[in-house]
């Protein structure tokens, strides 16, 4: 039974009700005056509370999809899945560069899905699977192509591309569509001529199940940075009419994806010219869900610490938008320190809310202005 299924929640809810009924039923047996009876009462209350909380947490997880499966949960607790075996064994089958190996139109996820859907009017969402030839990694992603992509007047146009990276673990692969509402918001903003037509690649940083790799090239492990900096852009550019130069490529993300976006833009400024970090941290995290990412080397960890980088290395020629909130965003101090240290040619803009928690309601407030900001900076060909 799935972690997020109704069955699991129903069972737990039933258990909670059962627990309470049982307590009411055996209540008189613990009504003695002895100390042991008092202890039994407290134990019954605590036991009931435990089951109630378990049911509640399961329901919240099913709603917010923190963990999508039992595997996600077990590996997040630090156990279970180890690093994958030698990825070389399954690589190299594609020949040539990285490719999109599965491409399916999903009109049901596209704007205007209710009525008659027409790509040349509404644009189109496609589900793709990208096979990274350099890294042996693969990922399921969703691409939103703007209406213009299908119009004759734009047949030779190469569109700018934005790579969107969700937080960790983002068990819902459709999180950018279901919670970020990117295709709808974009279709509206485009119809109002507030933004130029761009291609939106919606991805998750979780390319190895149950491992928060922080988009790092892990020594002896998955090369996630290379996957997003080299494999994904190559596969996308080989399939769609994308801009070829860096001035047409941007990267954006929230939470862990925000860190990834800022890091990819700064370390791969020859590929990306603009990045957006929404509610992202700027130092190099290490905890039980990340495990060891830097081969035990403090120097390598510093190398992924974006605050250390702007203080100690030449600032790269990219534009970054830092979206955060004064109240309620734990990463705000990290973002503020980073912004203070940034120097040209690294250009930093900020998008600050007076308050906003680490939740999708807040992220949704960041997304439309971030897209407008990217639209004003990226250039098609």
């Amino acid at each position: 039974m799935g972690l997020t299924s109704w069955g699991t929640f129903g069972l737990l809810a039933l258990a909670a009700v059962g627990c309470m009924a049982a307590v009411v039923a055996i209540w008189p047996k613990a009504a003695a005056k002895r100390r042991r009876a008092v202890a039994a009462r407290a134990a019954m209350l605590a036991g009931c509370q435990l089951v109630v909380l378990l049911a509640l947490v399961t329901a919240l997880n099913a709603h917010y999809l923190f963990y999508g499966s039992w595997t996600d949960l077990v590996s997040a607790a630090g156990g279970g899945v180890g690093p994958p075996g030698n990825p070389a064994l399954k690589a190299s089958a594609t020949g040539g560069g990285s490719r999109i190996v599965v491409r399916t139109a999903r009109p049901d996820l596209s704007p205007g899905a209710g009525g008659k859907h027409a790509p040349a009017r509404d644009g189109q969402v496609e589900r793709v699977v990208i096979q990274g030839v350099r890294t042996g990694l693969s990922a399921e992603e969703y691409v939103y192509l703007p209406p213009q992509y299908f119009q004759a007047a734009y047949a030779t146009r190469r569109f700018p591309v934005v790579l969107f990276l969700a937080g960790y673990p983002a068990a819902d692969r459709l999180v950018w569509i279901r919670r970020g509402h990117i295709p709808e918001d974009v279709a509206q903003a485009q119809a109002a001529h507030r933004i130029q037509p761009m291609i939106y690649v919606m991805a998750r940083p979780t390319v190895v199940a149950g491992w928060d790799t922080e988009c790092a090239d892990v020594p002896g492990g998955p090369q996630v940075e290379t996957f997003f900096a080299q494999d994904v852009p190559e596969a996308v550019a080989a399939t769609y009419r994308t801009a070829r130069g860096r001035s047409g490529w941007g990267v954006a993300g929230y939470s862990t994806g925000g860190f990834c976006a800022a890091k990819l833009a700064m370390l791969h400024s020859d590929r990306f010219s603009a990045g957006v970090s929404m509610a992202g941290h700027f130092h190099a995290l290490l905890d039980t869900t990340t495990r060891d990412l830097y081969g035990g080397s403090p120097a390598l960890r510093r190398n992924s610490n974006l605050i250390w980088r702007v203080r100690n290395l030449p600032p790269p020629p990219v534009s970054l938008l830092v979206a955060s909130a004064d109240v309620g965003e734990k990463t705000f101090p990290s973002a503020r320190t980073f912004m203070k240290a940034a120097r040209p040619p690294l250009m930093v803009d900020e998008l600050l809310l007076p308050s906003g928690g680490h939740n999708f309601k807040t992220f949704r407030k960041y997304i439309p202005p971030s897209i407008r900001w990217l639209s004003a900076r990226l250039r098609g060909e």
Partner: protein
Amino acid sequence: MEPVSVAFIGPVSLLALGAVVAALVLWRRAAGPGPRAVLARSGLLLAAQCALTASVVLLANRYFVFYPTWDDLLGNTPEGARVAHVQVQGPRAAPAKRTGTEARSGGGRVDVLDVRGARSGIDAKARVYLPKRYFDPGAQPLPVAVVLTAGDGEPTIPADARQTIYVAVPLPGGRCQDVPGRTGGPLAETFLAADLPAALADAYHVPPTRDGWGVAGDGPAAGRCAARLAMLHSDRFAAVATLDARFDEPRGDAAPYGGSEAIRRSDDLPWRLRNVPPPPVWLLAAADRDGPDAGQARRFVSLVRPPMRAETLLLAHSGGELTDVLRRLGDRLLLPPRE
């Protein structure tokens, strides 16, 4: 009084404590038979559970800061935030400046380009050999071959090359890779893989994708460096040619590896060919037929698996080996991209 404030969580927690204590104390009075007693038990139990759950939820919300304000949780305020500049906006410095130029025999031009590496902080001079055809009006961009040299000596660029732009550049400070986590770097790899191609793209009409880009290296260090660049930056370079390269991991300086054995190992090119997915590049490993590097080249090429491709080229000692190797690299870059 926001949901994360002590003023709110405090009373709720006290209430929960009160409800639990009340249940424990009043337990005996609700232990009797009859529907009224059962109702009383249910009431006591539910009150305790609800109050406890509320305080746990509030504490968790305070810890993770999901919803810091009531408005965040319940409100529907539209986004009103504005983007503001943090730095003074200004034009960025040009990544390259031509400081010298001379005509080339047989047409064409040789430029001296001052490359300012914004990403690496490294500045270097590159010599750019432009064939006559580069100046044809309306011509397609010509392929680019970056030629790494170990010293200041000028490489022997094929004089008859008509279709390739050769760019000779010394290894910055004799290095090939970035030193991680040290103030200022040096960031030789960033210079070669990112700054130099960006500067060339800024100054000249060059291919927009990796298919028109190659890299070559002459000698043990520059040869290995060229192979390393192509293998690690195969999104930038599609082909590489080496002459008398030593492919094994160079021993000695541990700084480029941040003191990590795993990173040192992953920089060992033969180890990479055996243990990680091979990159989609073409490699020509050339060596003097009778020299000690012929074995190196053969061993390295024998490890190559698709999608990487490799060829060995054993040359008789003639003095013109580099020219030959560079010409072959140029020819390769002209082939239709990938068969």
